[in-house]
């Protein structure tokens, strides 16, 4: 989607909102996947993990909304021009899959509990309302989807992690730094100076503010 824009106008880094959301959600989603698999396979930890899983899932849903809005309003940095087509395709497809699953997983979880007749407890004394009717068939379909999409999400997260490290350690291109940190002052301006002044980083810092 950045192909139409001249590269010099494109940001080199994700904006601060995107970076904070990316890293906090990365932690939350990875934790969520481990909590999820742990709570359905443990005979002792289920109560504790379930009470963590539900509010964390809704928190991820809320963060995903903020993240999508930010993503649509702020152009991400372009992928390296020399990246093979197949990798470009894989990068774009996996990112949209991650976005889709960030929304789908909490919504399916919430619907699934509704269809199973369970209270959707965020914390003691506060339940979310059911969003689908209490129904065995609907429950079974959603319960199955929640598991299979969780495994798909985990596989996509692993692929994303592998690709990120490949960019960082093998290709050593701009992809990993674009999410790892904001724009740094240009070598010429080592003196303490507002980073936004540098023309090189204008795209990024504009988005940061």
């Amino acid at each position, binding site marked *: 989607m950045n192909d139409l824009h001249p590269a010099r106008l494109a940001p080199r880094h994700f904006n601060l909102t995107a970076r904070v959301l990316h890293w906090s959600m990365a932690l939350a989603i990875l934790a969520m996947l481990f909590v999820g698999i742990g709570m359905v396979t443990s005979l002792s930890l289920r*109560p504790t993990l379930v009470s963590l899983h539900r509010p964390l899932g809704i928190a991820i849903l809320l963060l995903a909304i903020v993240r999508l809005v930010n993503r649509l309003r702020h152009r991400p940095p372009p992928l390296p021009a020399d990246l093979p087509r197949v990798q470009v395709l894989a990068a774009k497809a996996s990112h949209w899959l991650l976005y889709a699953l960030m929304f789908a997983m909490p919504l399916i979880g919430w619907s699934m509990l509704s269809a199973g007749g369970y209270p959707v407890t965020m914390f003691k*004394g506060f339940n979310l309302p059911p969003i689908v009717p209490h129904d065995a068939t609907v429950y079974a*379909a959603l319960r199955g989807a929640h598991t299979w999409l969780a495994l798909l999400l985990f596989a996509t997260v692993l692929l994303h992690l592998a690709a990120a490290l490949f960019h960082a350690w093998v290709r050593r*291109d701009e992809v990993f730094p674009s999410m790892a940190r904001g724009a740094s002052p240009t070598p010429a301006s080592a003196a303490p100076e507002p980073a936004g002044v540098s023309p090189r980083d204008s795209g990024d810092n504009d988005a940061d503010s």
Partner: protein
Amino acid sequence: MPVNDPADAPMTRHRWPALLAIALIVGGVALAFGWIAGWLTPGRLTPQRFTNAIESGNGQIYRGYRRAHAKGVCVAGYFEGNGQGVALSSARLFAPVRTPFAGRLSIAGGSPYGLDGKARVRSMALELNSDDGQQWRMAMNSFPFFGVSTVSAFYEQTRANTPDPATGKPDPAKQAAFLRAHPEFARFASWAKSAPWSTSWANTTFNGVNAFRFINARGDVRNVRWSMQPQAAFAAMTAEQRAAADGNFLSEDLQARLARAPLRWDMVVTLAQPGDPTADPAQPWPEDRQHVTVGTVVIESSTPQANGACRDINYDPLVLPTGVQGSDDPILAARSAVYSVSFNRREHDIASGKADTAVGKTAAPEARP
């Protein structure tokens, strides 16, 4: 891939350590996930494997039915608090209000066609929906204490009672080995042998068995257990009467009684003293502990479970309102985990059209042992 990629050419030499590191990191995360999932440890007891053992113990999978306590009826009514529980717990239903419930009365055993006269254990489950939007699910049994203290012993008990495919009956040698390994089971065995059988669900006491914590509005915490004690007079049934009774006498009796009047149980809370064990459901607390009657369970109607509200409810005893918490009893957490798997499996049976009898589309065969 980027062999022909000029940008990569200078670092080709150093690529393999990086690729190895990536593989180790990604593989490590995947392995950790697989380990937690139990995929790497086929011997670890999980809720799925526990449920498999229960299914094996049943001799077959009864599609669409609960994997344990498969036979039962749905009931509806209300709980009426008398106000005495307010000092113990901030749960709304202890106030002098009526809290409606969707409940279930059942007998133990994995067969939906089990004979009522042969089921040593009966149970009552309630899903209480209070007017503050909170829910309390209870799953109570007619035994006063559990047979075993740990989840692994509970599993061994299930395995020991699994019918041998050759004889169709549990292997006496395995049962004897279980008893030798678990002397704590003797108390339960003695209860099962000597406690009189009552003639009805209506005159059966149902016990919460596991310990819970009650927290009142001031934040005081008490360890408790509770029982539903019938207002209907106890009447015992002899072995001959049980043998002669209809296989469905409990539900027939229930309907006859409900046609005359609602059925009532007093909810009696037992307060632990410091030091009373909360983590061992096989250990009853001393008789002299304080008992507080906090309200009345009133059953007004019943419905067959094939089309009743209880069919699609998982009576997970850890769905609790404000003012009630689970204890450190490991059996309580395990019940929650195994009930969830049982629920998922039977709802899946229903959704995939394998459970015509369970949902009342085809008639059930006659009760059989």
